[in-house]
Each structure stands twice: as structure tokens, then as C-alpha cells.
């Protein structure tokens, strides 16, 4: 009845209180874009890692200092860190019912993933340029 074309209710009042709309499709889309990137990057990273098996320090470091492996590793670790952060955010939102604990868990999640990203970038750049 409230959806009748001649209803006097505004569109906003019709959808209000019908459910949570905290993030809409933004999360799903970000998850899929990073997943497509990671699926392709994982194949390349796996091949790169297999070429490094059994190599000594100097050989591994020389390989990782080359542009393609370095850029590949930067793309992989940064995309993975973002994918990890939004994935763990969903897990926390699903399983931590207490508002206060959930907010701290979400902060911890962002800091952990940020640290993973920064440490990886630092290591790859140091291997490349120092």
C-alpha cells in the first residue's frame, strides 16, 4: 500500500528502518576487484618463489632487486593487505557483538594490515635500492 504510485510517503520514509545499510555494495565490489588482482598476482608470485627455491642469499637478493619481481611483490603485498583488512572487517562485524570491543578490534585490524603493508614496502624498496 505504501508503495502505491500516489502514496504521500517519501521514498526515504518507505525504506527507513527496513534494515541495515552500513556499506551497501562497496565492500563486495572492493573484495572482487582485489580478488581478481590477487588471483592473477598469486600465479606470478608462485612462479617467482619457485625460481628462488634453494638459492643462496646473494642470488635471491639479486633476483628480488630486479624491477619486475620487486613491482610484482609490491603489488601483491599491498593488494593482499587491503583484501585482508576488508575480509577481517567482515569477520569482526559478524562475530563481535559488543560495540566497544568491535570498534577496538576494527582499529587493531586496520593497524595490523597497515603494518603488514608498510613493512613489506620497506623491505622491497630496501632490497631494490640499498
Amino acid at each position, binding site marked *: 500500500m505504501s508503495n502505491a504510485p500516489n502514496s504521500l510517503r517519501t521514498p526515504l520514509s518507505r525504506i527507513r528502518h527496513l534494515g541495515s545499510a552500513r556499506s551497501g555494495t562497496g565492500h563486495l565490489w572492493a573484495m572482487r576487484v582485489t580478488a581478481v588482482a590477487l588471483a592473477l598476482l*598469486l600465479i606470478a608470485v608462485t612462479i617467482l618463489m*619457485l625460481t628462488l627455491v634453494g638459492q643462496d642469499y*646473494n642470488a635471491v637478493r639479486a633476483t628480488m632487486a630486479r624491477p619486475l619481481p620487486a613491482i610484482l611483490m609490491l603489488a601483491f603485498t599491498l593488494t593482499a593487505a587491503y583484501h585482508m583488512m576488508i575480509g577481517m572487517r567482515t569477520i569482526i562485524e559478524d562475530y563481535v557483538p559488543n560495540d566497544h570491543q568491535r570498534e577496538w578490534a576494527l582499529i587493531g585490524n586496520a593497524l595490523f594490515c597497515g603494518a603488514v603493508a608498510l*613493512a*613489506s614496502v620497506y*623491505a622491497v624498496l630496501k632490497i631494490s635500492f640499498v
Partner: protein
Amino acid sequence: MAEASTPADKRPRVSAAERPLSPHLQIYRPMLTMMMSITHRITGAALYLGSLLLVWWLLALATDARAFQFATDILTSWFGRLVLFGFTLALFTHFMGGLRHFVWDTGRGMEHPQREWLAQATLVGGVGLTLLVWIAAYALR
């Protein structure tokens, strides 16, 4: 309407067990499709912690030969290999689970036989890719 005028703490308490509950996990018999869905989340969480292995390896490589040797010694010990095997198994199972979501995103694979087939393919593909990579690693050593 009488209840509305009574303060919340004065109303008779209804115990949690008396309220109708929607059926949850313990009601259902475990099914492969359900287990693979849970596996996708568990492997994702495992890889979250496992990312520290890659960060540690990269930092050791960036530091010096001694740090790299230390990391390599631990990662190639029997315990290190066990952890790395678990890491790669989680990685490729999660990878296959992601491909399964891409199939579903196109609107395909939702019917019962396809669903079942996709769940099996995720499991077999994840284990298969892991074994393939480890065989390749030992062959290239």
C-alpha cells in the same frame, strides 16, 4: 498498549530459551557446500596471520645474509616446512574458493548439482595445486 506504559525493568522477563530461535549451524547435518563455505573464511583468517611469514622473509632478505640464513633455517626445518605446507594449502584453497565466487558472480553454478560439483572442485583444486607446487619445489631444489 499496557506494556508500553510499564517501565522496561518492571516488565516480566522472558528467558532466552522461550523466545523463538531461527535454526543455526547445530541444526544442520554437515554438507560439503557448507563446509567449503566455512573453509573459505577459516583459510582467509589463517592467511591473515600467515602474511607475517612473507613479511618476515622479506624483512630478513632486506636486512643481511645472517638474518636471511636464520629465517631460511627455520622455514626449511621440518616444523617450518609443515607450517609452510599449511600456509600454501590455505592459500590455494582460498584461491579456488575465490574462483568459485567469481563463477557465482556471473549468476551460474547455483543449482544443486553445480553447487556440489563446485564445492568438490574447490577442495580437489586446492589440494591439487598445493601438491603440484610442492612437487615442483622439491624438483627444482
